[in-house]
């Protein structure tokens, strides 16, 4: 059985584990923290705990000292609606909420009636419960084990010393956890950025701390490239994920950081890490579909969606929903097409729009638009954008003829801004006379 502390034991104590804008934690300090908090940890053995919206560094420390001791850890990012908390606590049988106060582990009881504890077993394989970045519905909880999360993490403590990973993803989500694990299990340094800072400040912080490995979405990389500070970065490793990586961004990164290894990875909370592509071209070779990969199998269904079967099936939905089909494949919901022996990603089969890594469901925006008196019909779709991958575009039919379209457009946008997050507000609005419908009278959605 594996757990984080087992790896930390092997790492030279003088190495730095975490840096954020306020503090620095060495691996020695991480080891000590576990000893310091021995008594509390004993109370928590085998229990189900939640880390609820604590800051990134605190999360990293809590996970490092509790993995292998508690039975389950629920990761609750700040952006999860409060109204869902109780549902998730019940699904995961949460007993305690945990946090740190001056490096001391503290807990509050969430449910005192739950006494399903496994006190005898001192070291357990902790279940990590991660919410999906849900688009259509509320995020689902997916349970992973240390094995399912680390199957593709390349670990080498000697080489790990050379890497200083920047963390720009949310640490509560699958992508951020991958970066944390990659760094800590090899004894590298994790530079934790503050998401409330602007891009220049974030890049400056990475430069100051000599970050040389970074995993981010293509949209984030484009932002990085727009800063002057980007010229001062020197990379050994560049990873792209969370969005479709196009040829252009790969090319630009390759030119600017020619010393760096560059890969784009396919991963999702459900699948885990699928595979990585290192040839600096968009998509992936069709040979990946022929069983060339060690850890997964892939197939393309007749409707063009990609299905992935991980060999290690450690992950499952916490609810009763089935994650696998009868042959052990997971539907990724990503549409693909094959061109010249290469598989390219087209977008989501749900029609979800990916705006710089944030997923948007067109129907949600259509509902908001239709709630305005002056709009009689609305159709929301994605347009390609060289900066954000996609932007939200809306075709709108108005209830009556108007003259000042600019004014109406601003009104619509202001209205949307009041009830939608920024990236969901239509970027481009087009006024049309009618919308196309299918024979059954449904809105015709053009899938790319």
């Amino acid at each position: 059985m594996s757990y984080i502390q087992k790896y930390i034991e092997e790492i030279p104590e003088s190495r730095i584990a975490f840096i954020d804008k306020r503090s620095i934690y060495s691996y020695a300090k991480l080891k000590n923290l576990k000893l310091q908090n021995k008594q509390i940890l004993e109370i928590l053995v085998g229990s189900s705990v939640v880390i609820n919206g604590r800051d990134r560094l605190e999360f990293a420390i809590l996970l490092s000292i509790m993995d292998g001791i508690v039975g389950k850890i629920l990761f609750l990012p700040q952006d999860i609606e409060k109204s869902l908390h109780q549902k998730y606590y019940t699904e995961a049988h949460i007993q305690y909420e945990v946090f740190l106060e001056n490096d001391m582990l503290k807990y509050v009881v969430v449910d005192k009636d739950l006494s399903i504890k496994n006190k005898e077993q001192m070291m357990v394989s902790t279940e990590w419960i991660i919410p999906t970045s849900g688009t259509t519905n509320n995020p689902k909880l997916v349970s992973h084990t240390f094995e399912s999360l680390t199957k593709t993490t390349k670990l080498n403590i000697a080489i790990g010393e050379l890497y200083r990973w920047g963390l720009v993803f949310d640490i509560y989500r699958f992508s951020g956890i991958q970066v944390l694990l990659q760094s800590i299990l090899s004894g590298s340094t994790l530079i934790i950025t503050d998401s409330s800072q602007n891009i220049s400040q974030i890049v400056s912080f990475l430069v100051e701390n000599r970050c040389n490995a970074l995993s981010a979405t293509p949209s984030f990389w484009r932002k990085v490239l727009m800063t002057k500070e980007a010229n001062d970065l020197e990379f050994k490793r560049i990873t792209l994920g969370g969005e479709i990586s196009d040829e252009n961004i790969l090319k630009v990164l390759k030119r600017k950081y020619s010393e760096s290894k560059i890969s784009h990875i396919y991963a999702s909370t459900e699948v885990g890490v699928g595979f990585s592509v290192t040839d600096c071209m968009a998509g992936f070779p069709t040979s990946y579909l022929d069983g060339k990969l060690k850890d997964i199998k892939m197939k393309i269904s007749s409707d063009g969606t990609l299905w992935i079967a991980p060999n290690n099936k450690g992950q499952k939905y916490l609810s009763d929903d089935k994650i696998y089909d009868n042959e052990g494949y997971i539907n990724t919901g990503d549409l693909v097409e094959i061109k010249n022996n290469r598989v390219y990603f087209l977008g989501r089969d749900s029609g979800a729009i990916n705006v710089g890594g944030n997923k948007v469901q067109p129907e949600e925006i259509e509902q908001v638009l239709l709630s305005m008196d002056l709009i009689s019909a609305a159709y929301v779709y994605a347009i390609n954008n060289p900066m954000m991958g996609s932007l939200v575009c809306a075709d709108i039919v108005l209830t009556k003829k108007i003259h000042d379209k600019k004014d109406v457009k601003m009104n619509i946008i202001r209205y949307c801004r009041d009830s939608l997050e920024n990236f969901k507000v239509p970027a481009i609005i087009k006024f049309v006379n009618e919308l196309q419908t299918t024979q059954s009278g449904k809105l015709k959605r053009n899938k790319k």
Partner: protein
Amino acid sequence: MNIKQIIKEKYLEVLEQTGNELLVAELRDDTVLLESGLDSLGFAILVATLDEVLEFDPFTMMEEPIYPSTFGEFIDIYEKMNPGN
């Protein structure tokens, strides 16, 4: 109106559309784009809006796209890549 004027006008429009405010006294060639008030989403919207008006998007036309840091660099790209030139 020349391209520079159109870009300035659309810039201010998108600024309003995204609920942002100009953080500098005026838009100058050396104004750092991401510090001028427009965030990266607003910036993407500006590129899409200009595509509507000018009917070209230099960033998708470039062999290897350049990501501009300043307002001047941004305008330069549009002037250089203008198919009407």
